[in-house]
């Protein structure tokens, strides 16, 4: 069945960990837009949610780093962070191994993805789920693109991976939703945390909104690092989601830099 929902959102740990330090007006508008995403996913009738994330060494390390990985577990756990620090309590999250198996098998027709039956979620998936599926009742298929340990997954491969995910979702009878989650410009977990290149973000989002493949794939990692920080490497998740949307335009229903959250907070939905 064709993908029933596709969108993107931010996942920075500060979104929950440092909530009380943000301007409450902007913060609450952001939270309200995450709530809209949650309702849109629910109303789509989705039976499973693919979360295309950019994890931060919770499962994958430089001893065996996959360019792509898709979860195939019965259940997952998170967060790996101190729950008091992230302000998200430990949860078990249901998986859907049979559906994962079929999606992975189809993706593998064109992209050599790794797969994993064990997966501990860090803030990169737990923060989105905290807002999007707060009851942790919708089966999740976690997906990772290496945005952390160079050599990183090339942008054009992230696009092809997104296309493969879409083809796989369309081939199964279940209703599947997909959310990409990453930052745009940001310098997380450095002394520069809170630095945000808003102009760079807005230019990227213009390209993203019109789903301009060539413009998005023209970004260069050296330039991205200089202009958008190492957190900017996470545009791979937005690019994969755009590819999964098969050229559909996106409605960015929220964007605002929130420095104490360390990122330009974003919520967008594709017009599938």
């Amino acid at each position, binding site marked *: 069945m064709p993908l029933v929902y596709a969108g993107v959102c931010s996942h920075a740990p500060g979104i929950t960990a440092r909530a009380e330090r943000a301007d409450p007006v902007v913060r609450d508008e952001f939270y309200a837009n995450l709530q809209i995403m949650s309702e849109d996913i629910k109303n789509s009738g989705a039976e499973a949610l693919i979360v295309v994330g950019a994890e931060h060494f919770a499962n994958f390390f430089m001893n065996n780093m996959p360019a792509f990985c898709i979860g195939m577990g019965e259940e997952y756990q998170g967060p790996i962070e101190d729950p008091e620090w992230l302000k998200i309590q430990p949860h078990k999250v249901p998986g859907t191994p049979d559906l994962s198996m079929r999606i992975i098998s189809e993706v593998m027709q064109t992209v050599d993805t790794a797969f994993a039956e064990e997966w501990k979620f860090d803030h990169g998936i737990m923060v989105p789920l905290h807002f999007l599926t707060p009851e942790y009742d919708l089966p999740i298929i976690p997906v990772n693109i290496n945005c952390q340990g160079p050599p990183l997954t090339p942008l054009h491969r992230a696009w092809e991976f997104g296309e493969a995910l879409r083809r796989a979702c369309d081939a199964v009878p279940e209703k599947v939703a997909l959310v990409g989650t990453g930052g745009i410009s940001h310098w997380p977990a450095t002394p520069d945390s*809170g630095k945000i290149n808003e102009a760079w973000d807005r230019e990227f989002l213009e390209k993203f909104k019109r789903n301009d493949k060539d413009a998005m794939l023209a970004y260069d990692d050296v330039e991205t690092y200089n202009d958008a920080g190492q957190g900017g490497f996470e545009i791979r998740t937005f690019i994969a989601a755009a590819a999964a949307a098969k050229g559909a335009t996106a409605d960015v229903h929220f964007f605002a830099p929130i420095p104490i959250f360390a990122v330009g907070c974003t919520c967008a939905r594709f017009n599938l």
Partner: protein
Amino acid sequence: MSLYYLQKVLYELNRDPAVQQQYLEDVDSLLEKYSLSEEERLALIKPDIGLLYVLGVNGQILMHFAAFHKIEWDDYLQSMRDGVTAHGPVRAGVYAMTGGGDNFTKASEVKQESD
């Protein structure tokens, strides 16, 4: 030299409660399993967040380690700045300090009662 293993200790520590327990109870025997310089070993034990940052530990790994040690967010950021002041620029990786030590959040933050 042994940045890979320095980060691997932290990767395994961050995700595994059994490793965390061993760190707390017998850190020397835990660290014996990894090929570390004396400087790295001592920085892990102290913990010296600033030195670990300058040695090139990826900030995401280091952030979790700081949280494990109950280091408050602002103190974590300041520890990295202090590390650069004491030891010079970050020596490896993609988490270098590029903002001259500035604080990028304070201007937009809601003032806290404890301030």
